[in-house]
């Protein structure tokens, strides 16, 4: 279980105006919610509101300024391979071929060669990268790169999968393919999954629950349960209604944000 309790975060301002005395701005304001084991939760909200920041805190890459993040009752103190992360821009090792990218974590963990080979084969098979083992990342399309990144995460057999807009840079056909594959993977292994997205369709298609954030600073605006059976049909009226509801929430947010920016 992931428990986010009264989490607050400030960052230093990049550009200070002369009359400003406060050198920091608030990104997250008193965020509280919990994620159950095996649950698939999406974070949605205006861009720049702090979704990635929250995700990085769960990963242990960033400390909270107030409140705390608990994983299975333990305070998160730093990163660990029980919480693997997938980034929008893949972040693969350019000097390693596909196979080495995927097996790097296992080697770092000090597993023996036999176990490394077995698990790597398993992950490669799961994301459909057979035949691409010797290829280097720059030779792959975006969708294939993201497959490598996902394989690199699941090969470590994490409890928690953190994904920061993983399909945001992909064309819509590839995106839908990968969404379907991700949900199949999740159904097989039931990773507790947090996925940041700005795509309402993606959120409704994948998630058990959707956390909607307000912006500057981010607060939890709403948490929406998606009680639709899987595999979900994007054309079902409940699906469309839910998507439109979230879209509406987001539009109100975006409008407010624009108005604020115009006032500045």
């Amino acid at each position, binding site marked *: 279980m992931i428990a986010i309790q009264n989490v607050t975060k400030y960052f230093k301002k990049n550009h200070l105006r002369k009359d400003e005395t406060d050198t920091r701005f608030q990104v997250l304001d008193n965020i509280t919610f919990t994620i159950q084991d095996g649950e698939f939760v999406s974070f949605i909200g205006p861009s720049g509101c702090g979704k990635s920041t929250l995700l990085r805190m769960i990963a242990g890459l960033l400390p909270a300024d107030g409140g705390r993040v608990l994983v299975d009752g333990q305070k998160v103190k730093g990163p660990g391979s029980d*919480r693997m992360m997938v980034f929008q821009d893949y972040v693969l090792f350019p000097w390693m071929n596909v196979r080495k990218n995927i097996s790097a974590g296992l080697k770092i963990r000090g597993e023996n060669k036999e176990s490394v080979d077995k698990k790597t084969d398993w992950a490669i098979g799961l994301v459909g990268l057979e035949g691409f083992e010797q290829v280097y990342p720059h030779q792959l399309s975006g969708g294939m790169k993201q497959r490598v990144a996902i394989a690199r995460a699941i090969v470590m057999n994490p409890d928690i999968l953190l994904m920061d807009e993983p399909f945001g840079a992909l064309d819509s056909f590839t995106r839908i393919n990968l969404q379907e594959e991700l949900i199949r993977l999740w159904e097989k292994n039931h990773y507790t999954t947090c996925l940041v997205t700005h795509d309402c369709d993606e959120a409704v298609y994948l998630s058990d629950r959707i956390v909607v954030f307000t912006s500057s600073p981010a607060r939890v605006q709403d948490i929406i349960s998606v009680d639709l059976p899987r595999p979900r049909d994007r054309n079902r009226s409940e699906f469309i209604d839910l998507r439109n509801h979230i879209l509406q929430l987001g539009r109100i947010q975006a409008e407010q944000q624009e108005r604020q920016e115009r006032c500045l």
Partner: protein
Amino acid sequence: MNQKLVLFLRGCFSFAVLLAVWYAASNTGIFGRVDVDRGKLLLPDPGTMALELWENIKTGYLLYNIWVSLLRVLKGFCLAVVIGMPIGILMGMSETIRNFLHPIFRLFAPIPGAAWVPLAILWFGLGDSAAVFIITMGALSPIITNTLQGVMEVDEKLIQVLRIMDAGGWQIVKYCIIPSIIPYLVSGFRLGLGFAWRAVIAAELVGVPNGMGYVLNVGRNTANTAITLIVILSLGVIMMLMENLFFTPLECFTENWKSKE
């Protein structure tokens, strides 16, 4: 026609023209500027040079002195790499170390290797140690600078990925820092090696009693222009060989994965 052949023929043409101009200059008293005899002394023609080269290869004199200098450069350069690379990596990875070493480095980096010659002779006497010391001092700063720059430009997110995988400091160096700084190391080594050769020639010109710089001086003192020119050309040939045997393969290696966007 085959491209390699074209390149080869083009090279031959360049050298043929150079040799022709050289021959003419030598036999016309530098195109009539000095007496013909004096011209031959100042700039021996290619034939004389070839004979002199053959003489010196036969006696082993030339190769011995090239070997002496080469060994010094390799020793000094390797020492500079062994000292400079870890310093650059540590400076890049730790802000504390960087803040501490940077002022010192700023002061010492711009000092030309040759400036250390008198001090080195004072400390180590006229011999190998002095030369190696000077070479190390000359090659150190470009190696540190380039290593540091490479580490500073390592993709922060790759390190985050490794930290998520529970990698320790040494594993981060091995899996991420070293591979991503290779292109920077290549340019650092290239500069460093250039500085190393300058330093060794300076040291040998000034007092170290053997090596290529020493032979350059002997040529001047005995009015044997040919041997001086031969040593100068040998330097060019050695640098070219090092480029082709060492740096080009290293660069090809990184081409393997470098994104070609």
